[in-house]
């Protein structure tokens, strides 16, 4: 999830979620950034409305099971 948090951080900071920026954040966190995963992250987010994707619920089954408890 580090990569996702890096993306969220950049997004909230109003920065571009670019390979360079993601790498900078991960490196600052002391993480040996994996170039390929960074590429994959940036590619995955291309054309994605992050604000929308953040707020759209993604997990159903867990929540359903937990609800009546």
């Amino acid at each position: 999830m580090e990569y996702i948090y890096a993306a969220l951080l950049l997004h909230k900071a109003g920065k571009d979620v670019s390979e360079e920026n993601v790498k900078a954040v991960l490196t600052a966190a002391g993480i040996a950034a994996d170039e390929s995963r960074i590429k994959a992250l940036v590619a995955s987010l291309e054309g994605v409305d992050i604000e929308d994707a953040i707020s759209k619920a993604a997990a159903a089954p867990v929540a359903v099971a937990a609800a009546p408890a």
Partner: protein
Amino acid sequence: MSLYTHHLPEWKREEVEDVKKHIGQFTLVGLVDMHGIPATQLQQIRRNLRGIATIKMTRNTLVLHALAEIGGDLEAIKDYISGNSAMIFTNENPFKLYKLLAKTQTKMAAKAGQIAPEDIVVPKGPTSFKPGPIVGELQQAGIPAAIEAGKVKIKETKTVVKAGGVINAKLATVLAKLDIKPVDVGLMLQAAFYQGSIFEPSTLNIDESVFMGQIAQAATEAFNLSVNAAFPTADTIGAIVTKAAREARSLGIEAPVYEQDLIDAIIGKAYREMAAVKGAIGEN
């Protein structure tokens, strides 16, 4: 100023130097309100803070001397000094100190004339008292009491003082007998000087539940983003696969595509549709 301090008696001079020494030794210099803290409780608090924070009680005038001699931004903390101030020193940050001090708060029996920090409620039910003058004491304090089965019983739950109200002498005595401890006692941080700035309690009082909610929200957002953008992580790959499979099932059932994996669900859907129409027409 130096001229003035020069004339301090020797013991005061030593005290001012000691305060200055403490200020130099610790990264945080704070003021705490000692008002209403009994000696026994203070001893307990000191024990709890041992190795973490040091409390120093000195005359305010001497503290002012020490602050003036050091000068700089620290001196502004003098505005927070009250009649019951003591100094507190620690190498922890002010947020942590605030939390530590909050933990030293304990409930105590109320003294006559004290202000109720919250509504004081006496619950109904039996007490441990044997019949005697206590019944009258309770009644005089506004607590409905009676004797029942050889025991003193409180007849109904009653709020005896509202938050902010004064606890009178009679009530204080009775509350103590009932073992109701309504007053928070502990060191209240008045201000802390740390790394060049002064922190006030209002800044340091962090609502933990809000904070926990924010962590949960951040985790949720990350989870949602990972799944919705289909960027797999160890934490989310399962959910991503489930989502894709659900989408395929949904499409298959909606279309419908007659597949072994879906046929049960499709039969179910057809049956429910039939049942819904049956319900709509009220047929049997």
